[in-house]
């Protein structure tokens, strides 16, 4: 299956192409979402739609890094688009044979695969959606 391959810092991730609506450049400024969890960067206006943007690094509990976040990967979730703020997008690649990820597994991660000799973490669109909802519903 074809996947959109993108990076958070040096780490490579993939999402099924069918689950991605588009990739956009982040807006100059976001509208802050009051009382939202820290991982929520804000909302942006994408051609009349209000899209919630979440920092993938924080969603996956990855350490902070120095590289600027240059792209928003838009998950196609019907009427409620979800934007994932990532370091950069590499392109579209065919990813075969996804195997279980080692160590602690979160629902957001479907598994790992090899691509051009390097590892890529394949994410699960519904899992990501659920992870975002969990951020909001988790007791403070």
């Amino acid at each position: 299956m074809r996947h959109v391959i993108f990076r958070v810092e040096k780490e490579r991730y993939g999402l099924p192409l069918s689950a991605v609506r588009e990739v956009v450049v982040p807006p100059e400024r976001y509208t802050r979402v009051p009382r939202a969890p820290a991982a929520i960067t804000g909302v942006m206006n994408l051609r009349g739609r209000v899209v919630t943007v979440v920092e993938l690094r924080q969603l996956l509990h990855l350490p902070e890094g120095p590289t600027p976040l240059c792209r928003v990967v838009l998950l196609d979730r019907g009427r409620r688009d979800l934007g994932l703020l990532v370091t950069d997008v590499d392109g579209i690649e065919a990813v075969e044979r996804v195997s279980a990820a080692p160590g602690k597994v979160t629902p957001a991660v479907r598994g790992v695969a090899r691509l051009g000799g390097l590892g890529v973490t394949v994410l699960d669109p519904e899992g990501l959606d659920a992870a975002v909802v969990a951020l909001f519903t988790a007791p403070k």
Partner: protein
Amino acid sequence: MTMDMSRYLGLFISEATEHLEALGRDLVALEREATAETVDSMFRHAHSVKGMASSMGFESIAMLAHRVEDLVDAVRQDRKLLDRDLVDLLLSAADTLMAQVRAVAASREPEAAAPLLEQLSARVRALTGHAPAVTRVAQVTVLKPGDAPTAGAGEPGALADAAGTPGTPGEAAGAPTADAAGTGPSGAARVGPDPADPAASAEPAPRAAPGLQGTTGVEGGGATALAVMPPASLMPPRDLSAPENLYGAPGARPRTDVPVEADASSSVAALGANLKVLANVDADGLPSAPRWSVRLRISPTCQVPGVRAFLVHKRLSTLGTLVDLRPPLEELKAGRIPDGFIQVELDTTVGEAGIQTALRNVAEVEVVSVSQAVPEPPIVAITPQTAENARASADASSRTVRVRTELLDYFLDTVGELMLATARLREVGKVMPEVSRPALEEGVYRLHTLVKDLHDKVMSARMTPLSLITDRLPRAARDLARRKEREVELVITGAEIELDRAILDELADPLLHLLRNCIDHGLEAPEERLAAKKSVRGRVLVTVRRARDRVIIDIEDDGRGMDPAKLKASALKRGLITEEAAARMADRDAFLLSCLPGVSTAKDITDISGRGVGMDAVKRVVESVGGTLEIESERGRGTCFTLRLPLTVAVVHLLLVQVGEEVFGLPIAKVVGATEADPDALSRSRETALLPHGNGLLPVHALEVLLGVPASPRPGLRPFVVMEGDAGTGKVALAVDRLLGQEEVVLKPLSRPLDLLPGLSGVTILGSGRPVFILDVPRLLTA
């Protein structure tokens, strides 16, 4: 060639869903009153679903629908067969069918539901006394929508099963064909029998029913059948030696022969034939209508040979007088035709050509032989079959098409964007040099008119009748009533009134919750009702009406009513209102206390679509689409919830305020006023600053603190907005950094996950393109 059914999948899903919803409604209505119309309508729905599912090759759906059809048909014959258990069984079948259709929509294999199917079949046997008929299903496999992008290698018409199962040899139906092996790495496997596939023709198609082999899927069956048909000379001699054939001589039979079929049309035809015959009367006064012996064979691939034979009989009987038919008509109609052979003796003047012509147009029939038992009669011209009529020109009558709701949403978003772009152009025009301005402004004006017109059209296309959501209520009412062992009569009026689709979508859960509220808590137990001299059966009225630009929905029960004192006490206990406020509070407001979290929802929370929905959520949703909720109640008489809703996506007036870098919208409807004051000069009660307002003091809340946004207010005067609170909070003053002015905006409901945040009632996009949240101040203060 296999038909590519995948293009019909969307239509199948939407139409089957409609039929199943209607079936569910009918079932509920049926239990109240079993009218012939309702039963007929149910039959049609089940029948349609069966037909569509079998065309799509969804066997499990087709079978289940077929059993429902059987049972409804039995009820159609005898309505006394209907009882509560049968309705329950049919309802669960309708539910399962719905789940199966949903599974198909999600590209999953529908559940086979074998136990239910067995139950239904047993019921069919019990009611009709015979085993249910076999369900015939087309041998097609629908390309699942989700798989489409990955199935690039498939040839046209090949049905690929690509996603996730590369190389899986054709799962349920058939083996991979030779050409599938060569379609590349995706391993697209063609499923279903294929004429070129030796495996498929060597063994019966897996889904073909006993006795129907060769009728489904296997192409070329007809040709094979024809090849094995014996030539006329090899026909069994018994037919020729039959005693009836002995009177084949001309004139050996009296002319007064009665037609085999005594029905009017064949008699008329026979009469006509005889009239023609009379014109050719021989010198000795006997008619010369010659007798023909016709031998036919119904194709072995014909699924309904009885009907086919009947059609042949009908055709031939219009040519003249049928003097013999073997097998006899009743046998033919029942499909008891050994090897498909039919022998007819016919007196007609149309000749062999006429007989051949009459049968040439009948499919699945082969004329084995036509032979004359008498000398060739004068040939009578055959009337041309169709007169060339003057045809009315093909008129492009107005057509309706179905549009997916996402597309409607897209239209609205795009029109919104067009409006924004137009506004921006106008802004740009203001700073253009004087000379070029008029032309631009004219263009912008024209664009604005067009876009506005388009907006109106899009909005009207989005209008959807409320029945879309109220249609679910009778079933819900029935289930609730049954669970609570109560009798409920639900009367819905005005459901044909239309609302914007986006508002409707939001209202589905709140309406269901209000209905539940009425049945669970509003209506009393039967004994209690009797004691109160009410009818045992409780009544819930859902009345929809239109009042200017609003739609008003009343949900009213004739139950016990609400107790304002109890509600006040409960709110007091939770510290949501003060003793003083409780004392002054009107009943109307006290009823609304039930919408505060914790007052009555604690025991009321119902689980709809996986999340708790209480009265607070109902109120929030109604307000988020720009509507209001009112509650009227009288002890012992009942409660009425009134929803006042805008017709279209709400246009709201906002007061825009700035805090730090952020802009927020406050609904003007809830703004009492604005004032300026120095926060440091305000008096305080404990931690809370107090702003003088009218004759009293209002608690002050700094908006940046409430919202958790960074802001560094400058020392000195600060604007305050005085807002209406709710029953619990009373008026409050909000400290902001700047008042930006009023704006009229289109409110968008919050989508997941934003709807999970308390204190936001919607979002909008300003002319500048900036998204701005609209605040629900009372919720901000309490949550």
